[in-house]
């Protein structure tokens, strides 16, 4: 019965996401099936949780579940119609030589391993007390998080101010299972890993022009323990890994949109990722702002058509809308940061050296990161060295800017021992940048291995 319920929940989630991604991908003329499935999952999680939240303001229980399920079905029907109208060709990306076969096989084994390992692990501390708790309480209250949860100081430890994409995806599973079940709540996270690894392979292949590099990057993701297997990783139920994957998709499609023939299909996917970012975690609003900010600069500089200005708006509306909602329910939350103003900046500016010392100690911890940050640092330096190329420049900025903002935010920490604040949360913040960092590594490796610009690149003029 549990398996049937789980299949129903995941199936309807994919129907809804599939509808959205079909509409977005059908513009391309041909659809890569792997890309289609991955985007269906990412957008399905965000859309189903958003519909549950919005619908929960008016309905509850079986009525709410039926409405959201009906919308998922309607979305699939609309997508079917769009497909029959546009009639794009469906492409299954098959390995083309022994190297790609080998790398694909290793990647498949890793994804299976993540599924098996996630069975062994429990939900992590935050996975249980920050994320699953919301799904559980909403389920016990007929699918709706009551105002009492947001307002009660007794549960402020669970960060009621955090957005609901992940917990309400778990809630969707609970509604189908008919019970709150911590074991099945974990099931979405290895799927996120699989989806993330495949998206990394796809985007890595496109950006470097070499499929083996894309596959290699996806394999290397497994060897960043903090992202794949350690505390706070993909297997313990934290929102940071899903956020990292959506940020990767946003960055990847923004880079893809720089090629004029791709922009028509890539920009709407980028915009949809922007909407998802602040809906997954509060830090997603920062990542959304960074990605939207650089997209706006690209538009201003004439690198993207001006008609795309409007696509930056929905993501920001989502971020602001969630804050307004929290204000309307008078959320009780732990105060982790003082207000950001000139006085607190000047007063606490001297914290920066200590903050960077803690961050340096963190990134050099082999047990958590291996040599990922060393490699990412060198890759970023290489991308900066290749500053005159737009892709390299943009990717370097999209890696470094969130890093600077994340480390700078601790200047405003309200904790008495602010370095404890840094030490306890910075591993998760850094993890959000791992897939994008790997993309940077891939681009650098591609250019080093193949000796500078690829043969198909257009002639280059300096600034």
């Amino acid at each position, binding site marked *: 019965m549990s398996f049937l319920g789980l299949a129903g929940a995941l199936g309807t989630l994919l129907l809804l996401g599939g509808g959205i991604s079909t509409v977005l991908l059908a513009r391309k003329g041909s659809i890569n099936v792997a890309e289609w499935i991955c985007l269906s999952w990412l957008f399905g999680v965000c859309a189903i949780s958003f519909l549950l939240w919005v619908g929960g303001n008016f309905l509850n229980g079986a009525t709410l579940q039926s409405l959201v399920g009906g919308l998922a079905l309607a979305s699939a029907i609309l997508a079917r119609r769009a497909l029959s109208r546009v009639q794009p060709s469906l492409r299954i990306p098959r390995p083309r030589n022994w190297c790609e076969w080998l790398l694909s096989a290793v990647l498949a084994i890793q994804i299976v391993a993540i599924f098996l390992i996630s069975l062994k692990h429990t939900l992590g501390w935050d996975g249980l007390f920050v994320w*699953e708790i919301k799904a559980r309480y909403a389920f016990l209250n007929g699918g709706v998080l009551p105002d009492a949860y947001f307002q009660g100081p007794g549960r402020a430890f669970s960060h009621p101010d955090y957005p609901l994409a992940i917990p309400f995806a778990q809630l969707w599973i609970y509604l189908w299972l008919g019970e709150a079940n911590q074991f099945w709540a974990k099931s979405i996270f290895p799927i996120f890993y699989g989806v993330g690894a495949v998206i990394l392979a796809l985007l890595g292949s496109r950006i470097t022009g070499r499929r083996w590099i894309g596959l290699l990057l996806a394999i290397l993701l497994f060897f960043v323990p903090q992202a794949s297997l350690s505390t706070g990783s993909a*297997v313990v139920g934290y929102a940071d890994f899903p956020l990292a994957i959506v940020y990767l998709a946003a960055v990847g499609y923004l880079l893809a949109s720089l090629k004029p023939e791709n922009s028509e299909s890539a920009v709407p996917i980028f915009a949809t990722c922007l909407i998802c970012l602040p809906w997954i975690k509060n830090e997603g609003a920062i990542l959304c702002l960074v990605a939207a900010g650089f997209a706006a*600069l690209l538009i201003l500089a004439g690198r993207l058509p001006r008609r795309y200005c409007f696509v930056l708006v929905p993501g920001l509306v989502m971020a602001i809308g969630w804050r307004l909602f929290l204000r309307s329910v008078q959320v009780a939350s732990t105060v982790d940061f003082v207000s950001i103003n000139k006085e607190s900046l000047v007063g606490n500016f001297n914290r920066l050296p200590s903050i960077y010392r803690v961050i340096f100690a963190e990134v050099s911890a082999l047990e958590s990161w291996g040599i990922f940050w060393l490699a990412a640092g060198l890759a970023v330096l290489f991308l900066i060295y290749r500053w005159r190329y737009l892709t390299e420049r943009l990717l370097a900025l999209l890696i470094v800017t969130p890093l600077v903002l994340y480390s700078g935010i601790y200047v405003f920490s309200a904790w008495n021992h602010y370095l404890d604040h840094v030490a306890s949360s910075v591993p998760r913040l850094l993890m959000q940048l791992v897939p994008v960092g790997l993309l940077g590594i891939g681009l650098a490796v591609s250019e080093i*291995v193949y000796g500078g610009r690829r043969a198909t690149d257009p002639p280059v003029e300096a600034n």
Partner: protein
Amino acid sequence: MRLLELASALFRVREITAIQSNEGTATVPLTLARMIRRVICAGFIGLFIWSSVPSVSRAFAGPFPKRIDAFHSSDTYFEKVTGLAHESQRIIDALDSLPPGKPLLVFNRDKDPISSWLGMALAYLAWPREVRFELIEGPRCDQQLAKIAPDSIGAIAFCNVQPPRWLPGGMSLGQYGKLVAVAKPAAK
């Protein structure tokens, strides 16, 4: 205007982006310099994998769960902390038997991870009952407890805090805690 200047400075480059399709690759002749670069990259990738092997292999350790349990995670944590199995449902049952309107009072020790975890776990399971936390320094809470009107609360949880001697009974949470019902059980 400044934004426009910034955008121009950052992104007004003449060349077209390097994005290309998978089909757009070309064969590059292999020179000695390129070969050295490839060896360095291969070495770096090898080092990347080798540096994480100990952490990755550790993740494979441990048994698979024997059965699928609705409280899979909280029960596992409780068992680690208190040594007691299947505690989650027992705690829910104990709290459900109390009058619904009365909050759970949790005594937490400052800077004590076990106490903190136990308090949060009890709050997690106590829903929809209101929860109040009292943070104390040191192992005893007699003074704080004396200030509380007994009829204002449903139960008291002592998380790595010694309960006062004059408050007997309660449900043991292993060596680190105790849950004491203060209100009389609600009539069924």
